[in-house]
């Protein structure tokens, strides 16, 4: 007898935070080592006392218990149509997702269609705005194809612009992709048809964390960004504005110490890529390769960053930045920068910023 209906009932408890649901699941199956059937046979007091649930939560669980037969109907329909239901404790569940989102945000259930093995392969997400520039789309295409050829899974959100370009480029070279849906999986019928060949070939996995029947909405589209970032080992930003899903997602990633790569913008581009670099993202060239220290702009940015709090000597800068360069040469390079002022402190030549206004963020904190 399968316990999918129990999982679904718990995963979709109304107004419960993911962390709360995950904690309860851990408590039931890991700490208490009881089955869901046994849990749902406990009475109100046992739920309250043994699982530290409040009145409201117990009431929610009682209502959910009545819906278990209904979830059985839904689960049957899903499984019969070839969808997979992947529980957070199963081997198939993406380890990357669990590691990135932890108990706080990892969805208890993944509804998928296609090759579930893709969930545990090395993966990248290429993100960016829906109205990205041609150069950003070009960048997306190039790196998506590169990753695909190197057997990396490209995680896509199936939005217009960068998402869609990354997906199409990947599939063009017969690469593998995970499409994270902004809707319930059963409602994505246009995609079933469009990506039919790739799904049955095992090149594409459709994935949704939402209730299977829920239709697309802006809220869900925003909400699924976290799972795109979560499913990827590496994140590449093609283009971002100062607001919107990409910006929020990437900032969130940076906060969580994720390594984020961003396309280095041209000088005349009006986007927030450069700002992202200043916030700590690693700039990459049009082929997705990290830009080396010798690269002037990046080097200047590092110097600006490191001198933002206090003046330092060339030797100190060299040590801080782990630079493999002659100290005298480094000193000459820094001296040539127009935003630098050199001065002698206790007979030692130190460098400081001309403009003393402190820069935001610190790449190496």
């Amino acid at each position, binding site marked *: 007898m399968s316990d999918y209906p129990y999982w679904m009932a718990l995963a979709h408890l109304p107004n419960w935070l993911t962390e709360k649901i995950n904690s309860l699941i851990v408590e039931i199956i890991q700490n208490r080592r009881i089955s869901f059937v046994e849990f749902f046979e406990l009475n109100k007091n046992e739920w309250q006392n043994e699982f530290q649930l409040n009145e409201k939560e117990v009431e929610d669980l009682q209502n959910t218990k009545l819906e*278990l*037969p*209904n979830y059985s109907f839904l689960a049957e329909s899903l499984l*019969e149509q070839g969808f997979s239901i992947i529980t957070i404790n199963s081997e198939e569940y993406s380890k990357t997702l669990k590691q990135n989102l932890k108990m706080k945000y990892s969805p208890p259930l993944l509804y998928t269609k296609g*090759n579930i093995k893709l969930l545990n392969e090395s993966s990248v997400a290429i993100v960016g705005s829906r109205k990205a520039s041609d150069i950003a789309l070009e960048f997306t295409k190039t790196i998506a194809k590169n990753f695909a050829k190197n057997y990396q899974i490209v995680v896509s959100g199936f939005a217009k612009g960068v998402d869609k370009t990354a997906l199409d480029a990947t599939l063009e070279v017969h690469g593998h992709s995970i499409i994270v849906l902004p809707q319930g999986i059963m409602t994505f019928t246009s995609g*079933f048809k469009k990506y039919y060949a790739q799904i*049955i070939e095992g090149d594409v996995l459709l994935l949704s964390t939402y209730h299977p029947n829920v239709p697309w909405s802006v809220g869900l589209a925003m909400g699924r960004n976290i799972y795109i970032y979560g499913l990827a080992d590496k994140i590449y930003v093609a283009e971002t504005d100062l607001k919107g899903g990409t910006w929020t997602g990437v900032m969130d990633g940076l906060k969580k110490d994720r390594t984020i790569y961003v396309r280095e913008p041209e000088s005349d581009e009006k986007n927030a890529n450069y700002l992202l670099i200043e916030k700590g993202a690693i700039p990459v060239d049009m082929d997705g390769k990290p830009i080396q220290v010798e690269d002037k702009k990046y080097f200047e940015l590092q110097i600006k960053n490191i001198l933002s709090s206090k003046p330092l000597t060339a030797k100190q800068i060299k040590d801080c930045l782990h630079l493999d360069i002659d100290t005298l040469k480094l000193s000459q390079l820094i001296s040539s920068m127009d935003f630098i002022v050199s001065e002698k402190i206790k007979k030692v030549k130190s460098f400081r910023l001309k403009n003393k206004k402190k820069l935001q963020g610190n790449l190496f904190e």
Partner: protein
Amino acid sequence: MNRNQAKQTLRNIFNLNHFYEDQWETIERISNGERILLIEKTGFGKSLCYQFPATQFHGLTVVFSPLIALMRNQIKYLKSIGISSECVNSEQEPEENSEIFEKAKQSKIKILYIAPERQENQEWLEAVRKMKLSMVVVDEAHCISVWGHDFRPAFRRIISLVKLLPSNFPVLATTATATERVANDIIAQMGGNVKLIRGNLLRENFYLSVVRVDSEEGKMAWLAEFLKNQNGNGLIYTGTRVNTDLFASWLQFVGIDAANYNAGLDADSRKEIEDGLLSNRWKCIVSTNALGMGFDKPDIRFIIHTQIPQSPIHYYQEIGRAGRDSLPTKIVLLYNPVDRELPEHFINNSRPSINKYQRVINALKQEPLSIHNLMRKTNLTQIQVRVIKTDLIDQRIIREVMYGKSKKYEYQFRAPQLDTRPFEILRQFKIAELKQVIEYAEAATCRMDFLCKYLGDNSVGRCGKCDNDLQIINKFTLTDNWKNKIKEFIECYFLELKVESRNSNIVNGVASGYYGFSNIGSVIHRCKYENGGDFPNHLLIQTLRAFRHKFGKEKFDLVVYVPPTESGDLVKNFAEKIAKILGFPFSNGLKKISKTEPQKVFENYILKRENVKGAFTFENSAEIIGKSILFVDDIFDSGTTIKEIGKMFTYLGTAKIAPLVIAKTIGGSWDDITKPAGLTKRIVNTKKDNLKIDLYKILRRWRVRKAKELSIPAYCILSNAALKNIAEMKPENFMDLLEIHGLGKITVKKYGEDILRLVNKGFETKSEETTKKPKIPSYIEENRKIYPNAYKPWTEEDNKKLWQLYNRGMKVEHLSHFFKRTKGAISLRINKLYIKYGK
């Protein structure tokens, strides 16, 4: 609630006084959230086991039932005792079903009956999520098991559902017929943890007997005699749809109120017949096993099988509906040892060939397809596609996926290879079951004991009522009187062509006979494909008689014919003769305006319909406005051409279009493959592997003949390798031929017809080719004993004499005596002379 309290409630709601032990045990366990498999004989009161608890539960009880007739009966009963219940089925309007879903969501219904197929319906799945559910019932649970007598694929999903339901959610599965193997299979499939409650199976009021007959005529005569002396009404089961019509027509012919019933009838007709049976409007219903299971009429006094069923379990189920009122009930099996050929044929051909499975798989590897598009892409019949998709879903090779509100089939990532071993295991199992039925028919011991033992009940011993226990030997011998009567019937038995539809002025027409019966088919074939000349006069006479039978003296304004694809002027000449004899104007005006392929190239009605869509017009449309048209063709197959032409005429303003054809094919449905009653038995035999014919040699001989005919070297027709491939692959149709290596489109077009005939009729071809002196058939010898001149050629002198005597007013019977020929032969000859000499 204890038993006494429950008894009180039982009295109040159901007006019943007590529970049987098994009923109470079931109800008690159900109330405790257990899972039960209840096997009890028909009439035991299985329904009460869920209806009673359903009234006590707060929420809704969903009953999955495969039988619409049963749903209707149950709803009627439940409503009459004040229990809110409804059923949802495909024969109700969608709006009505939607309203019922709404009521169920608002908890206004206690019991909802629903067909298992509904589990594939998106609206139901959406709705059920919002219903407060208390119990699930699986009625006719033997349909779950392939080892049962009526496996239904839709139950597979019900089982998947049961496995997912919470373990303490009550589930009741009920059936009247399950062997131990079937019961164990049901329990295993339900995920174990199921309590089996099983009662005894003895039906004390049944008088079982087997009547030995020698022929189909014998069955017809026995039925006519039996029914004239039999009280009450009952059911007569035939093996095929075609025979329901034949036997019902025969019984009507001898003055017995009979109706025919089969799954091919529309819902309204079926309902009318069901209602008529309930109100005793007919003495008997002649039916396939589409009627009976779940039909609740307490006083069915007899059930007669004109054909052995596939297994003892089929038989027990089919007779189970009789005598629910416990009064004496006669159960008769008419048995002729050769009858095993039909069920054997069904068993051996229950699955299409493997290359057809591959055709479906290949189509679905390209794109997801609905069942109709799958038929389009594969050129397979609807039944073939249904069987194949069921097997492929079962083996997880494809899936049925909802695309919004429509269903499509998808090939699966990492799908396994098709495994044909289960098909063979099942075939062998069914053959073994068939042997058991023959054992039943030939048994010398108690028949009730035989059936009950087969179903796992060893408690009967001796019923004391069956023919064996009473030591009665039933053997029926056909008298000449009956033989003549049957012959008379066959001569005026014509086939109705059901083509009427709402948007067309076409009316149902008539065919003079079945293509595969007697020699009509071979005569038509010879004329069309072997330069046999015009359709012979006997076909003309037979068709004219069919016209008179159906349309009487009705006058038509115009006779038209279907423009030919292959038959040259055959149909035109035929239609012209008909017009001349009947005295109706004849027209060449019906024309084809676009190229069509011969309809026989297409296996299903969708492709046939598309092939002829918009292909016809009438030259002078003003000529036919408001007119009635008699529309002549040689063969009626799916009826798509006739229907298309009917639509075109309707559009042009014709008031009435009536089709008249020489022959009707039996149709694409396997259910329709049959034997002709009262005629030579010839089952369409496709057991090619078993026939051990050296098809290759036959093909080679054909090639030599063909090469001589065309004056070209044999290898120019087909290579040896290609012939070997044909012999290996045994193609069944043009699509199969095109898949064979060594055969191109041109070859198939030139010789396809011949090759298919050789492959499909290999056995007959062999005898044709190897037997130089054909033996005189037994029926000719029989007839000559009474009519020494039977089947001898007519001389010109005979003709003149006959015409003279006939015009003097001598009756056919006397003419028969005078000429020492059968009455049928005399009638035929008179008809011919009618054409020759006129009035």
